[in-house]
């Protein structure tokens, strides 16, 4: 059962991934990415990461991707036209990508994984456990994300402000 879910989700994710990089219309790429995200969220759930699953759907697929859609809507549907200037780019890219994947794949083979820790799977990944982690051990990183977001916000505001000169 779980394996079936995994296979389906994985295929969807890959399909979405291919979609991202093949569709000419940006809007279709965005939607493909949403598909990937949804598929991944399923996998997260499968991996006992309920809270991440929720955040993935609500924040990531929901909010961030909508932002992309807004921008696309704002700017108009720009299609890539012509063949571009870098003639060898596509071929070489394919080659390099295959090489990169091959290397990653090769190195993932025969890995001796680490002995798992004894964990109660009933609380693993629940909102409570995440919260307890975030507000105690992860307090510092958590606070840092707030600064990060603040800076991103200021930057975005500054950049998108109309030039007053």
């Amino acid at each position, binding site marked *: 059962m779980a394996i079936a879910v995994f296979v389906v989700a994985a295929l969807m994710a890959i399909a979405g991934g291919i979609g991202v990089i093949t569709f000419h219309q940006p809007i279709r790429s965005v939607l493909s990415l949403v598909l990937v995200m949804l598929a991944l969220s399923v996998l997260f759930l499968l991996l006992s990461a309920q809270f991440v699953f929720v955040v993935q759907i609500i924040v990531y697929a929901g909010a961030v991707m909508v932002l992309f859609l807004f921008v696309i809507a704002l700017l108009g549907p720009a299609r890539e036209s012509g063949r571009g200037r*870098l003639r060898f*780019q596509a071929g070489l890219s394919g080659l390099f990508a295959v*090489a990169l994947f091959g290397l990653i794949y090769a190195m993932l083979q025969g890995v001796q994984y680490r002995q798992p820790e004894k964990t109660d799977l009933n609380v693993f990944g629940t909102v409570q456990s995440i919260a307890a982690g975030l507000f105690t051990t992860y307090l510092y990183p958590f606070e840092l994300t707030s600064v990060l977001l603040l800076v991103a916000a200021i930057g975005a505001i500054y950049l998108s402000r109309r030039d007053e000169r």
Partner: protein
Amino acid sequence: MNQTLALLILGFPAAGAIILAGRGWRMPRIVTQIIGPLAVWSSFIVTLNLFLNHVNDDFTYWTWIKSGSFELPFDLLIDNLSIFMCLVITGVGGLIVTYSVGYMAHEDGPSYARFFTYMDVFIFSMLLLVLAGNFVFLIVGWALVGLSSYFLIGFWYQRRSAVLAARKAFVMNVIGDVGMILGAFVLFVSYHALTYSSVFSALKGPLCLVCVNPSQAADSPTIELAAFLLLVGAVAKSAQLPLHTWLPDAMEGPTPVSALIHAATMVTAGVYLVGRMHPIYDVAVYAHGAVAIIGAVTALFAATIAIVQTDIKRVLAYSTMSQIGYMFLAVGIGAYAAGFFHLLAHAFFKALLFMAAGNVIHAMHDEQDMRKYGGLWSQMRPTSVTFLIGCLSLVGVIPFVGFFSKEQILGAAFSKGDPLTLTVWGIGFLTALITGFYTGRMWWLSFWGKPSAQRPVEHPHEAPAVMMIPVAILAVLAVVGGFIQTRALGTGPALVSDFLEKVVTKPNWEESSGAVGAGIATMALATALFLAAYRLRPWSAVVPWAQRLLEHKYYFDEMYDAAFVRPMDAIAAIGYRDVEELVIDGAVVGAGEAAEATAGSLRLTQSGYFRNYVLVFVAGAIIAAVLLIVRAAS
């Protein structure tokens, strides 16, 4: 006291030179006229004083340098040999400098002072050469006389030929200097000393300190090497084969210079050297033999060339070479005293010949071509007479000084009787005959007959007293000088030999009775040829090729030019163009240009395209991963 006196010998000419160099050209001419000769005569007096007091000592003044085991003082060696040489130098030198007062009178103020400066420098250098008590100051003096010679040859620097001749003389002399320096190195490495006393006493002791087998010490390759290297110096300075080509050209200098440096003193330094180094040459038989052979060959060689010369000074120059060849021959076979006696005699008659010729040249307004003289006998009687005395002495007519000295040399060679000496005697005999011929040719051509149509001056003036008196003194000496040493003929005194053989080695063979006869016969034949030369002059029409060969001086200059001078210039020019600029500099510049070119092409990778950058990024990541995988695998 004597120590100071010895230094004074050097001091007077040095002081004279410094004074004249510093202010001479602003002083009245008379001051120059006084200081120049006075410096030399003062030295002469001091030397005479030492001579009369029989001083014999090695005076050390200060440590010149000390460097590890190499310690060298500035010391002056006063012994019979150096006193003898000093007397010749200051005596004959004094006469010649005095003569110059008149000869150079046409020069303007600065040049006049310059001339006497150079002359004093020369006297100083020559005295240093003979007085030096060690090899280094011998070399210093050796080089300084070369320098003075350079200055004086190039005295009339307006003449390009004089400038070139000066340079030629200098470079040739430097070759000799280098030979001597290397010879000194050999001696130092063997004996760890460079003073004469240490080296010679080491030679007398266990001879070769570095020899593998001490029993070979008597004559070792080391000693031979040192002797040969010193010989290079002697040969260069004394214009012997094969380093002789500078001397004829050196006649570009004023005539007193030729008389002093290129006849009487400097060119005989080689003879002095071999005499001074007799402990070495006594042991080094091959080098010693080489001295004799070089001397003999040079004597003949130079005499043959003298036959065809037309320039009166050049005849005398080749004659000088030839006579020095005799001296070399003498010291080379071990008859040192005979060699030095001929040195003295030659100083008398050759200085006389040059100065008398100088009178002629003066009178002829610097014309030196004998073919344009003629008929001077009646017009310049005193000069002609003195010149004739010189000629007769040169030829060896009895009883002029040349007869006694030359006879002694040939006699010594004849009597020793081994194949080598007999050979050199043969050459010497031949040379003596040729000497008679070319001297006769010179005499008849210049002074006899009718005045040449091309003569620049119709009524030449006789030289002034200041020039004539030194010539006369020398003429007297040339006539009577021989009688101080007549014992070779079986009777009479041998003042020079007795005096010098306290220092140099005595010949270890007896004068044979046949030698005297052979000597007298030789000189008689030579005299006959002298007289016959009047008729035999147009000989060259018979063998024109020989004339050409001799006129080109056996093509030595051409050979040297082709073998050394032109290749050197060519190598320098080609080396500069093709190696220095292309390779040595090119490699450096090329490296820079290569870097720039690489930069230029690398720059194209920075295309400005984002996707290219990412591509390179990924490529880098792949390379890094492969690197680590290969590393792990190996």
